[in-house]
């Protein structure tokens, strides 16, 4: 777009490629993934999906999108592990920069902190997003509409059930999202969560005059992937009160589409005007230029991904779903060549086994993902489960729908159903548990 822009030259030297977009990957703590994301296990970004960290999928997508200027932002407790992963284990071509922020800052605050580093239009995404959307479909959509931001929403795929964790983690608990989309221009014009609404659903008339035909969806989910214009950073810097991208920035911009007063009061008119839009000038001269929105400095597009797979691993339930899906489409050898599997053991074709894992005789593994360096004893039955790395499972253990974290040990004759076993935790022999979280108690402070 701007091959001779001075700012871009720098990044050009740095990466040897020109970048149209920068990407900011937010690798947060993952509170809703307790106990998987505890310090004794892994930060959210590194939780394995089909034996690869979540972050890998995000970086892979960015790589395919041709975005090389990537900033991964994490909180202090994840710095060492993620840094280690990026340095040693990550096998993609990207060279992401890792930055650390305090734990309590919002997503927009993060952008404010690193505003100096953001030089072009940018993508903000979460590290827990896994989707098979061909990158150029989204980027081209953004390029043609050239909006202030494009948001990715998806229709959640039907869960295959038999979930890896207790049913209490089902996403019924999530408040319903209301998304209003202008039917003709696929503009996103309204967002709300049922948690904020009472018994009444109400829209401003000014919205209905500006966008007379609005589809209200209740079954869409926010993928937390946004492509923003550069000037939005200036807005964030100017307005300290904007702390979260999803809760403050996006609703503000959406409202700016039809509330003129807001444009002035937030100084958005000025900001948007300072931004010189070469592309708009180009489109203006083309025949397909459509005039009607010329005067509105803020336009918010929505991209609804319906046909393929898309999901976020921000709860245990969804994480298990994601793992099941990624395991299913995994193409590498399903059982690592370095794994030792007893000839009398059965590993279903729907399961994965990582490097150097030993599986003893008469053990059966179905619909499960086993990490590296695990030792699984005799006559063990594992189904619908995720086992991370360095796990010891003794003889005659039965696991169904469980998530077992790094370094855990499950002693003989235990039977667990729909449980999470925390990092390094030892399950004593003959434990019977259902719908439980087996974790070591730490001091809460």
């Amino acid at each position, binding site marked *: 777009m701007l091959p001779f822009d001075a700012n871009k030259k720098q990044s050009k030297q740095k990466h040897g490629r020109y970048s149209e977009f920068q990407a900011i990957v937010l690798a947060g703590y993952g509170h809703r993934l307790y106990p998987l994301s505890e310090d004794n296990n892994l930060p959210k970004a590194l939780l394995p999906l089909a034996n690869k960290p979540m972050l890998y999928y995000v970086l892979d997508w960015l790589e395919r999108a041709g975005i090389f200027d990537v900033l991964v932002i994490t909180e202090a407790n994840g710095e060492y592990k993620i840094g280690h992963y990026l340095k040693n284990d990550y096998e993609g071509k990207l060279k992401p920069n890792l930055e650390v922020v305090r734990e309590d800052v919002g997503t927009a605050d993060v952008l404010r902190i690193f505003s100096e580093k953001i030089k072009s239009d940018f993508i903000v995404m979460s590290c827990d997003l896994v989707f098979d959307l061909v990158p150029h479909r989204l980027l081209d959509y953004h390029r043609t509409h050239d909006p202030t931001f494009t948001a990715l929403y998806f229709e959640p795929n039907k869960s295959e059930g038999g979930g890896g964790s207790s049913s209490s983690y089902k996403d019924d608990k999530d408040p*319903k999202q209301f998304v209003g989309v202008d039917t003709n221009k696929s503009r996103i014009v309204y967002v709300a969560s049922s948690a904020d609404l009472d*018994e009444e659903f109400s829209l401003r*008339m000014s919205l209905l005059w500006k966008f*007379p035909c609005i*589809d*209200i*969806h209740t079954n869409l989910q926010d993928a937390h992937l946004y492509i923003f214009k550069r000037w939005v950073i200036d807005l964030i810097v100017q307005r300290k*009160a*904007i702390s979260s991208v999803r809760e403050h920035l996006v609703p503000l911009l959406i409202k700016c589409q039809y509330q003129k007063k807001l444009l002035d009061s937030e100084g958005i008119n000025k900001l948007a005007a300072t931004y010189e839009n070469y592309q708009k000038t180009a489109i203006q001269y083309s025949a397909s230029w459509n005039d009607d929105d010329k005067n509105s400095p803020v336009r918010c597009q929505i991209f609804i991904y319906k046909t393929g797979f898309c999901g976020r691993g921000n709860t245990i339930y969804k994480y298990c779903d994601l793992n099941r899906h990624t395991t299913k489409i995994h193409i590498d050898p399903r059982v690592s060549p370095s794994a030792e599997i007893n000839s009398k053991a059965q590993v279903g074709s729907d399961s994965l086994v990582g490097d150097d894992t030993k599986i003893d005789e008469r053990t059966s593994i179905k619909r499960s993902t086993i990490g590296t360096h695990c030792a699984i004893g005799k006559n063990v039955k594992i189904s619908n489960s995720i086992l991370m790395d360095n796990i010891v499972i003794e003889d005659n253990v039965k696991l169904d729908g469980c998530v077992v974290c790094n370094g855990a040990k499950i002693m003989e004759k235990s039977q667990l159903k729909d449980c999470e076993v925390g990092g390094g935790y030892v399950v004593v022999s003959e434990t019977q548990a259902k719908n439980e979280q087996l974790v070591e108690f730490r001091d809460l402070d």
Partner: protein
Amino acid sequence: MPPPSKTSGKNLEAESILQAVVLADSFNERFRPITLDTPRCLLPLCNTPLIEYTLELLAVAGVQAVYLFCREHSETIKNYIKKSKWSRSYSPIKIITIVTPEARSVGDALRELDAKQLIDSDFILISGDVVSNIQLEKVLDAHRARKSVDSNAIMTMVVKEASPFHRTRSLGESPIFVLDTKTNECVHCESVELYPRKRRMTMDMEVFKKHADVQIRNDLIDCQIDICSVEVPALFTENFDYQDIRNDFVHGILTSDLLGKTIYCHLVKDVYAARVRNLHTYNAISKDVLSRWTYPIVPDSNLQEGDSYEFMRGHIYKEKDVSLSRSCSLGEKVLIGAGTEIAENVKITNSVIGRRVTIGPNVEIDGAYIWDDVKIKSNCSIFRSILANNVVLEENVIVKRGCLLSYDVVIGPNVTLEPYTKLTKHKKTSESDNEGEESNENKAYDSTLIGEHGQGYIWSDKVSDTDDDEFDTKNIQIAGLAHDISNISLTDSDSPPSVIYESSSDELSDSGESTTEEESLKEFFKEVSQTLERAFLDGHAVEIASLELNTLRMASNTTFHDLRVGVIPTILGQIDIENLLTSAEEILEQWGPLIGKLIHSRQDQIDTLYILQDHCAIKQHHAKLFAPTLKKLYLLDVLDEDAILEWNSSELADNDSSKSSIRKKVAPFVKWLEEAEVEDSDSDD
């Protein structure tokens, strides 16, 4: 007129006869004063009575029986139908006129229909002023298909997609429809008034339990064509309070859990459908007919017997026997009826001219509707107005936009009619307006307004008794003939912007938010003083007054502080300034305890003192009242000395001279209090 195909007729006979109910009365008075003489459905649109368009539509759809509901001018309508082609032996439809002089609404008409038990299958409910070329068979088929899927479907409303500002979409009368995206089931329907301006549309969250995706549409034209099941009239009978079909019936059905009935919308896009609701749409639809949007329903289809319109270049339609002078010029979209004579140098654009009209030389006509037998003498100009039958304009008359000259009115010579003038030969002698009758009895025509030879009275639209008549007239104005859409503001520039994040919301929306809050507070204060004045007048007990005030406070969700702010000045206002001390004594003796009822704590007392102080500081004539009031309230035990002393010792926020002077006035009293307290404590020791 395309005759209905015989085959389809036979098929229908095999099942049952297709019935339609036509509401010939609009149950409103939009077209007054013209409708004093002619029923609305017989008003000529492009020289063809409105009802013809509706009947034509029904005939094409294969309707065989039409029940025509009339209220006013029923004889005129009956006679018209009797003489029209619809009463001939070859007429495809049979029209049964039902006269319901007592019906006041659509609901009444449908209840009458139910009582008569005339309907035995799905029927078309249509108002007698719809112009459309929609193919109703398709809509009927869709309705039946829906019924086979959803047995609770009782009605299909035909709506047309258009821009929200479409000319035939009468603003302020087109509701917002909320539809299920997949099935077009109507889940919510909300009317949109322009005055007072509607700020938000609101619906029940329950809707989302049944419907995952809905579409909110503010771009639909309600064509007022409904396909109804047999149950519909019965439902009207059951719910005798249903009046309007949209606001009451549809709303009632959609919000009722008990009935469990569903209503669907049928969206049409490429056809024409509009209803002549008011003068604004009358104008728009006339233009559309001339521009052939309504094809095949256009003037040169010659719907009526004896029509002989020919379509010419530039959307000019001319009947036989029109005599045009050599030098007259006809612009685009002009329709001229038979027997009309147009003299030299006449300029006509965008207009409809009736039959046997004579137009004198040098006349300019733009956007006007001139009905039959009008005489326009030389040098007149007419802009965007309606001249009904037999109107006479003498020389040099200028009719500005939006005027409505009813039957037989004579104007001129040499006058100019201001915009939106409505004139009629009827004196305003309606039963409802007895005073008007008297005053008009002997009143001659106002010759300054309508000229020496003028005949006619000014018609003013009935002003309703309610408080918001300002809004009513505004709403009527929008519906007027020549109202400019640009005059209506629809952006929310004057409403507060939304608050998105808390911390900065204060600074950014303070100005906006507070205005509405102020307004509601003002309203509240007004009501408080009204309540109190009633209490003063009727001599209520303090308890009753305080109960009333409390109810008011809760109803308007305000605080006791607000209540005190409202109450104290009103009570002080009762005090007779001339006779200050005794009057204050009397009033406070009676009403002081009321203030006491509004005080619950020390803080409240101090707050009361501040309110008193501020009030007396602002209202100079009440300044003198401060000291006596304070004393009296103290004596009544409304205020105690601690509160007064605390108040007195507090700093004055700014060096407000009037406030400090107020304080000086009570200095002796405060001093006395202080001393009394010292004595008190002394004696305690």
